[in-house]
């Protein structure tokens, strides 16, 4: 769906991108991960031609973007930046309607669509439609930004640290909701972040970049298990094992209940990492697992978790 072929971007003597080749399949969520200045935002912005590569080619849906009109191209892609950039002089509803209006949709159609989008990102249209951006909290503004990017139902989303400016609990909630949305909408998403945990949590594949080059491009599990270069190893750091637990669903590790009733339990939907944290915090060796109604359905042993990690290690 999106393909970079040997993309180079130079500013004078500085090489921001040193020949990036990468392919993002349709419906995949790929994060561009790396330290500041690694070229991840530059790479993202070559897709909607906010930046023109010095060399190389970017393809979207098998068409060279240089052959497409920049304005038309951008209208066909959702775009969210870290500071969101909501238009302060427009109401929330008008903000969300921007792209449909640029595309010439009829008033009723774009209004209905904008309200639908607000509801989709968890903002009650009746409450929020008429507000101005200065009346929103950080998390609400991020949601409006996402609704605005989704409004014209673009097949591609370009997200540049979209959850970077909110507090950690809000960020986690936004990530969860975004993942849920993505599982329904199946957009092709390029997602820039410098937050390893965020990347591990949401990605189908992670493209870890450094100095304008791709260090490794793999699914999170593979990246965490087999770092290819010393840079990747040091970027992932000592917590990579813990992070791997976060990609293991608890489902396969649950054992049936025995006579012993664990005093602490976690929900069935939690990750192995949450189970591990809970075990560490409580000092126990077994943990109850409850279903959606709160009923105990099984248990997880510390040994099982440890075995799961080392199995993966092998």
């Amino acid at each position, binding site marked *: 769906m999106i393909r970079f072929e040997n993309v180079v971007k130079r500013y004078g003597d500085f090489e921001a991108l040193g020949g990036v080749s990468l392919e993002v399949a349709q419906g995949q969520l790929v994060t561009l991960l790396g330290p500041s200045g690694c070229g991840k935002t530059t790479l993202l912005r070559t897709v*909607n031609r*906010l930046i023109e590569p010095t060399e190389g080619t970017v393809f979207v849906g098998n068409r060279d973007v240089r052959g497409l009109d920049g*304005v*038309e*191209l*951008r*209208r*066909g892609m959702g*775009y969210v*930046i*870290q*500071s*969101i*950039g*909501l*238009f*302060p*002089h*427009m*109401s929330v509803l008008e903000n969300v309607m*921007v*792209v449909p209006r*640029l595309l010439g949709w009829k008033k009723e159609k774009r209004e209905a669509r904008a309200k639908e989008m607000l509801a989709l990102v968890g903002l009650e249209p009746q409450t929020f439609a008429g507000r*101005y*951006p*200065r009346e929103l909290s950080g998390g609400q503004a991020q949601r409006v930004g996402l609704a*605005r990017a989704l409004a014209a139902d673009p097949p591609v989303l*370009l997200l540049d640290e979209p959850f970077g400016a909110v507090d950690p609990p809000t960020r986690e909630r936004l990530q969860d909701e975004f993942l849920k949305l993505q599982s329904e909408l199946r957009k092709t998403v390029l997602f820039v972040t410098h937050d390893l945990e965020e990347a591990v949590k949401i990605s189908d594949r992670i493209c870890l970049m450094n100095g304008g080059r791709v260090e490794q491009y793999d699914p999170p599990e593979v990246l965490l298990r087999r770092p290819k270069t010393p840079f990747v190893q040091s970027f992932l750091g000592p917590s990579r094992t813990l992070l791997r637990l976060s990609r293991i669903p608890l489902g396969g590790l649950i054992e049936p209940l025995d006579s012993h009733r664990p005093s602490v339990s976690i929900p069935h939907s939690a990750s192995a990492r949450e189970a591990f944290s809970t075990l560490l915090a409580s000092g126990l060796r077994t943990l109850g697992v409850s279903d959606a109604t709160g009923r105990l359905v099984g248990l997880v042993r510390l040994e099982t978790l440890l075995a799961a990690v080392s199995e993966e290690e092998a």
Partner: protein
Amino acid sequence: MLGWGLVLFLLAQQSIWKALFSLLFPSAQSPLFERETLLNLTLQHLAITFGAGALVLLVGLPLVVLVTRPAGAAFRPLLENLVAVGQTFPPVAVLVLALPFLGFGSSGAVLALFLYGLLPVVRNGLEGLTSLPSDVLDAAKGMGYARAQMLWAVELPLALPVILAGIRTSLVLILATATVAPLVGGGGLGVPIIAGLAVSNLAYVVQGAAAVALLAVLLDWTLARLEQALTPWR
């Protein structure tokens, strides 16, 4: 609106003014300027002010937009210097210099005031259009606004508060300075002031000055209200 009606009504009460000024200046032979009613002088004054103000907007704002586009950026320093000269050049001197071309009457005054009032509008316009939040512009571009659409739908509305503040400063400045118009045969509230100076009648001077001050306060207030109404999002 109500404020303007009230002030114009008050200014039309010629006999009340006469009584008031007789009281304030008991020694003056003729306490009230009576060659023209105060109301007429006010209307002339406003006509000159808004004539010059309209010229300022019609010329100033398009120039500002032009030099803030990439194509016109080279002319920006020139424009800034020209409007600065326009304001530092004394309006009285412009009046006299324009006399041979524009003749006697209000048009010379309108020209002088136009040059004088251009600076705040241009300077604020430039400030407003060049200090827009870069993230908003980036988002606008990334969402597919074409250049002209971006100017109309994003840049101008966002710069509006600063632009309006410039217009307000400019109009109030023009209103006060329009009192020089009678020097070249124009009308307005400068007429009693200058007549008063000529015959050493303080009462005439106070009449003209007080009326101008009243109008200036009212104009400033009106434009402040307009700013609020046009930018409900702030």
